[in-house]
């Protein structure tokens, strides 16, 4: 007999407004149990069981993001080996849709959080800067599916994009100036004008409209 079905995991102060409903948390909990195969934590291998994810060229980076301690709001640095449901929800919270009643300050903080998540995806060595090598890594991964593409071409595309980024952030550089890497402030500058907070979310289907009529 299912006895622990109704037990909700504790979700006290994880979510400053906007809130997630307990129904949505229940659904996510079921999904978590499915992925973890009824264990209390998820490891990297558990993400292998999702066939659709194999399609995604940056699959490695996305899975990595779940275990990145910076995203999990933990004080220490590096990678966690396994995450529990609370951590899972923390990562999912980066993809909350915005709500109508948010003020300027909240919206700005919300946007920064989402962009920080994307920044961490590029910055794989956790030093707070996206270097040329890290940029190249991402471009190579994204373009890795094309067998006709030589490594040189991918590299030159990455280099071109990096120079572009440098010119936006630092302006004209002298001949012996070395551009160390894109910092988070520069990163923010590049996303100006793109309403990431309205696009970077996953919406739950509206439950009431699908309710069964008895």
């Amino acid at each position, binding site marked *: *007999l299912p006895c622990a*079905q109704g037990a909700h995991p504790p979700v006290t102060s994880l979510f400053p407004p906007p809130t997630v409903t307990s129904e949505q948390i229940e659904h996510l909990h079921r999904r978590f149990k499915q992925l973890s195969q009824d264990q209390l934590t998820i490891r990297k291998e558990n993400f292998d069981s999702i066939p*659709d*994810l194999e399609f995604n060229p940056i699959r490695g980076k996305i899975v990595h993001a779940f275990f990145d301690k910076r995203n999990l709001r933990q004080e220490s640095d590096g990678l966690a080996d396994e995450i529990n449901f609370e951590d899972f929800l923390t990562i999912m919270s980066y993809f909350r849709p915005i709500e109508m009643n948010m003020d300027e300050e909240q919206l700005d903080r919300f946007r920064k959080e989402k962009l920080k998540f994307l920044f961490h*995806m590029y910055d794989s060595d956790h030093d707070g800067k996206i270097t040329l090598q890290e940029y190249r890594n991402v471009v190579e991964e994204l373009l890795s599916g094309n067998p006709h593409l030589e490594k040189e071409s991918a590299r030159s*595309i990455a280099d071109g994009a990096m120079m572009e980024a440098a010119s936006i952030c630092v302006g004209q550089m002298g001949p012996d100036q070395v551009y160390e890497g894109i910092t988070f402030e520069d990163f923010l500058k*590049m996303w100006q004008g793109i309403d990431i907070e309205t696009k970077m979310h996953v919406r739950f289907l509206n439950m009431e409209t699908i309710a069964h009529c008895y």
Partner: protein
Amino acid sequence: MFLLLPFDSLVVNLLGISITVLFTLLLVFIIVPAIFGVSFGIRKVYMKTLLKIFQWATLRIERGAKEKNHPLYKPYVNGIIAKEPTSLEEEIKEIRRSGSGKALDTPEFELSDIFYFCRKGIETIMDDEVTKRFSAEELESWNLLSRTNYNFQYISLRLTVLWGLGVLIRYCFLLPLRIALAFTGISLLVTGTTVVGYLPNGRCKEFLSKHVHLMCYRICVRALTAIITYHDRENRPRNGGICVANHTSPIDVIILASDGYYAMVGQIHGGLMGVIQRAMVKACPHVWFERSEVKDRHLVAKRLTEHVQDKSKLPILIFPEGTCINNTSVMMFKKGSFEIGATVYPVAIKYDPQFGDAFWNSSKYGMVTYLLRMMSSWAIVCSVWYLPPMTRQPEEDAVQFANRVKSAIARQGGLVDLLWDGGLKREKVKDTFKEEQQKLYSKMIVGNHEDRSRS
């Protein structure tokens, strides 16, 4: 002592009488109609009564939940998140336009390009199409079986009593009855086909074989209390053709074979299954393969082709998905049976999970546990649609033909048509599929780059 004796014999008498009555009922109401293929309609009445009880039970649960002011868990068939229908190109164009204003035809990588893949990845992690096909379908109303209840804490006393009564009826009355019937059916099948096997080949043998098979399958159908509705019976498979159907459980065979005479295809097993298979093949030319032969695709194809080319031979029954799916979708059909070149008769089978979930989750339950679960459910209710025959067109190859048949079956049964391979239950995605999306994106960026560098 003397006072006890008459009481004792009274009990014995009562027991004897009730067993005799039970067996007479069994014979008259179940086995005899099965032999002649008629039906008293008892099962339909049973089904209607059960439906009314389930509706009442669900209303009680909702009332209970409302009193306690808790939300109920409602499973959603369409998934829990809204997936954006925009394509890769559209999204990247949009983001670039709002950002740096560069159009897609400039061959450069943008920092924001990563965003589309990131979001798609998170969406897939939250809810994906394939993984949910391999676990049992979730019901929207409760059918008094504890195995399908997700809102267990809202059950009132009345409902618990009803549920207890249900358990009693199912396990103490229905289950023994069904086991007795199954036993009768299987032993009749084995003895009947062995006896018929001794007859010389000819019309008499065929006639008897057909009726022995049909009779025993009908008894097995009643052993599961399967309530089957057949649609479009004029499209039933004919000799020299291949019958393909979607696969949910081993019971599919019983359901189809109780309405038509088929030649089965499969691997010889050991144990009870092996005994049944060996007896059946004496009366009728089923196509059984040894375990070693199954690996050899050419041998299998050759034998099937030989069988099909003889127009007098029975239609073959094949399940091209290769594994059991949970009856909400149809997965990739293996192309082997579509290469043979015979007429294909598609059949769609859709179970109603309200009365008993027929899906066999072979990673969770073994065969015996599965059969016991089936026999202790209320009933197995399903609909079978016979679709018009299809043949391979000259410009199609086997894979396209297989997909065409699959779409027809999915459409008729109201199932989702998926391109995914049922083998994903056990294995990982083939590398060839992984590269598709990457190729598309890189074509977008690089294809233009090459043009630019050339000019």
